[in-house]
């Protein structure tokens, strides 16, 4: 049988189970799009910018666990994907990015819209391909999806010259393929499992640090079993939020720069740390050299290169989190740590991290809490990056697995809206809320058009403080309150939404908050709320500049005047 390169590509996508792609047309991908009507199984979501396409593919992948696919043309189309690809790389999100490339004879000639995208994405992809040989297309598509979703997931890019899309050659679908050098380790080494069990059994003050690896691996039940069996408090990373229901008696919030005080204190004081599918990112550890130096550390991760990268560990276990925890749960003994747990409860009581003060103005913490109340915790929350992201992570209560979608590693402003589009496409039945800042939102605001075109019932809450808020907070605390290049004179977001055909309302006072949220929820389609929040509200707790996990500014300190600008 003969097929064009474009047909082989789309045939491959269908065989890999792809139902939706995100992206934008352009010169070198016209043949690919031209072939799409032959594959009606695939729905294409037309975004308004390629960055939006990449984040939407990420949002889709993060919400469903499937591989997200984005498509862009050569040159600027491809470079516009780069931010989203880097974001997916740092947060281990399975993604296949397809880019057009100039025709094979033009490669290397600086042809119109030519850019070396495989070169550019070398450090931010798990692997990438330039298809120079049309018959190799089916194999490359298979390999790309296999690489993207197995082991530690990540983005894989396939760069396809326009003439390869159009060339018709003999088609052979490869039954098997061989990646001799790529064999992720799934099972933990039995000797290491036993060592880890001994460390856990001997622990008196243990904590579990659960990261996104738990969610990627779907190890919710196994994590809960370990925590309950050995009675170990579970603290998550930002990306590990919802790895365990936050209402679980052993759940103690999340750690790090803006984590809960008791979580940071417990991590600092623990004699044993069981790190599961997390990578000791500096936002989680704070000052790395001051990170708990006494504890014995067990580190479970599927990526051998994460072991010992930032923190020296005592018992490394390379493997898939779910598989390793299943092995570990068989050998870990039942134990109790009543005194230790009471100590954590005491810290949580004496250092309340999540109090909301009384105020007539719209407090962001109050808004998040009210969205939680109104959605009964059932919503999928997607955020941009900045202060609102931290409030969203702190004040919503995440009881459902994988219910927070946020950009952790790269910290990409503009992630929220397109990622929420992808999440809503992946979870059509879910209530998806995009919580965004006015700065972050304006970076990808054009995707409002995509929402309207796709008729997605997304709810958008803008935390509008007229500042690039997180930077303003740093300026206030560490740069003498010199607000350089942070005040934003934003547009009227309600009118912007209206121009895109999306209804909305503004909330200026506290009593506007609940009615606005209820209006959003009663609306069958998309809805936008412009929350005019307290402009100079800060995110607390906060680890001091260059400080360790327990060198913290707490909201209480600020009120007492402990913090001077």
């Amino acid at each position, binding site marked *: 049988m003969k097929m064009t390169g474009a047909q082989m590509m789309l045939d491959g996508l269908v065989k890999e189970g792809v139902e939706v792609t995100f992206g934008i047309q352009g010169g070198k991908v016209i043949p690919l799009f031209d072939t799409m009507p032959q594959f009606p199984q695939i729905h294409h979501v037309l975004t308004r910018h390629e960055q939006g396409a990449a984040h939407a593919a990420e949002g889709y992948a993060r919400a469903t666990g499937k591989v997200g696919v984005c498509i862009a043309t050569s040159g600027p189309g491809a470079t516009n994907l780069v931010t989203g690809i880097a974001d997916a790389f740092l947060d281990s999100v399975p993604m296949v990015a397809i880019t057009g490339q100039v025709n094979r004879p033009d490669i290397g000639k600086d042809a119109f819209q030519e850019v070396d995208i*495989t*070169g550019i994405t*070398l*450090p931010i992809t*798990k*692997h990438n391909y330039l298809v120079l040989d049309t018959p190799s297309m089916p194999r490359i598509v298979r390999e790309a999806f*296999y*690489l993207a979703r197995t082991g530690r997931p990540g983005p894989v890019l396939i760069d396809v010259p326009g003439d390869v899309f159009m060339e018709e050659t003999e088609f052979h679908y490869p039954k*098997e*393929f*061989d*990646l*001799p*050098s*790529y*064999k*992720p*380790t799934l*099972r*933990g*080494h039995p*000797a*290491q499992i036993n060592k880890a069990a001994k460390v856990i059994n001997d622990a008196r003050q243990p904590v579990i640090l659960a990261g996104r690896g738990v969610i990627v691996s779907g190890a919710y039940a196994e994590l809960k079993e370990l925590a309950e069996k050995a009675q170990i408090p579970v603290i998550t990373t930002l990306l590990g939020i919802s790895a365990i229901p936050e209402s679980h008696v052993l759940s103690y919030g999340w750690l790090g720069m803006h984590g809960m005080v008791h979580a940071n204190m417990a991590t600092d004081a623990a004699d044993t740390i069981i790190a599961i599918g997390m990578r000791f990112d500096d936002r989680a550890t704070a000052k790395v050299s001051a990170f708990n130096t006494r504890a014995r550390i067990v580190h479970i991760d599927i*990526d*051998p*290169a994460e*072991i*010992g*990268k930032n923190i*020296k560990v005592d018992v*490394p*276990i*390379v*493997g898939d989190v779910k598989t390793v925890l299943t092995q570990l749960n068989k050998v870990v003994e039942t134990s109790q740590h009543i005194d230790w747990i009471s100590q954590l409860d005491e810290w949580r009581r004496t250092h309340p991290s999540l109090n909301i003060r009384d105020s007539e103005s719209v407090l962001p913490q109050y808004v998040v809490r009210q969205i939680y109340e109104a959605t009964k915790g059932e919503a999928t929350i997607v955020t941009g990056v900045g202060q609102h992201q931290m409030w969203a992570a702190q004040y919503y209560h995440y009881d459902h697995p994988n219910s927070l979608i946020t950009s952790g590693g790269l910290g990409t402003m503009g992630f929220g809206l397109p990622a929420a589009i992808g999440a809503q496409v992946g979870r059509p039945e879910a209530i998806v809320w995009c919580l965004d800042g006015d700065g972050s939102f304006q970076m990808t605001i054009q995707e409002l058009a995509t929402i309207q075109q796709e008729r997605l019932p997304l709810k958008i809450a803008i935390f509008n403080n007229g500042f690039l808020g997180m930077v303003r907070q740093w300026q206030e605390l560490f740069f003498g309150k010199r607000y350089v290049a942070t005040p934003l004179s934003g547009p009227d977001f309600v009118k912007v939404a209206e121009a895109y055909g999306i209804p909305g309302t503004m909330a200026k006072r506290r009593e506007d908050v609940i009615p606005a949220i209820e209006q959003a929820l009663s609306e069958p389609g998309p809805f936008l709320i412009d929350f005019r929040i307290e402009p100079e509200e800060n995110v607390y707790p906060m680890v001091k500049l260059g400080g360790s996990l327990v060198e913290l500014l707490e909201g209480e300190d600020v009120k007492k005047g402990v913090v001077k600008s």
Partner: protein
Amino acid sequence: MTGNKHTLVALVEDRPGVLNRMASLCRRRGFNIESIAVGHSETPRLSRMTIVVDGTNAMIEQLRKQLDKLVVTMKVSDITSDNIVVRELALIKVKANSETRSEIIQIVDIFRADIVDVAEESVTVEVTGDEDKIDSLLSLLRGFGIKELSRTGRIAMTRGGTSLLGEDKDKTGGRRQKKAAS
């Protein structure tokens, strides 16, 4: 950067762009490559690289794992502390005239090196050995004037019967298990 010179050997797929992937990774993780030598290995379609880099043991172990993670690498080993044979080849074009030529030949003989080209005003010396041997010869020849120098960088191999793909050194369980992808 403090630490010692480490010798890493890697078996990698013999495909375009592989050297770029390896070198680019070293650069972005902050390692300075002292030398890198690439050529065919005993297995068809696999190239063997010998990379010499500076760093502490922990840093080099991190680099080794990052290199090993690349899809194109079959195996990467740090063989610095193993019992190894290390060789480098150099071509040295030395200024020579009728008065100095015989003295140069004597020195070359002592080092068991070869003269591979003779011209009116120069001789070209080929020498193999470890870096110290080549450095010593160079320092002796420098007095005559060196017109041109080309060194290959280090290649290395462990002594004894083992081979790179045959052994399994990683005690953390981090070694990739051999099984076919579906």
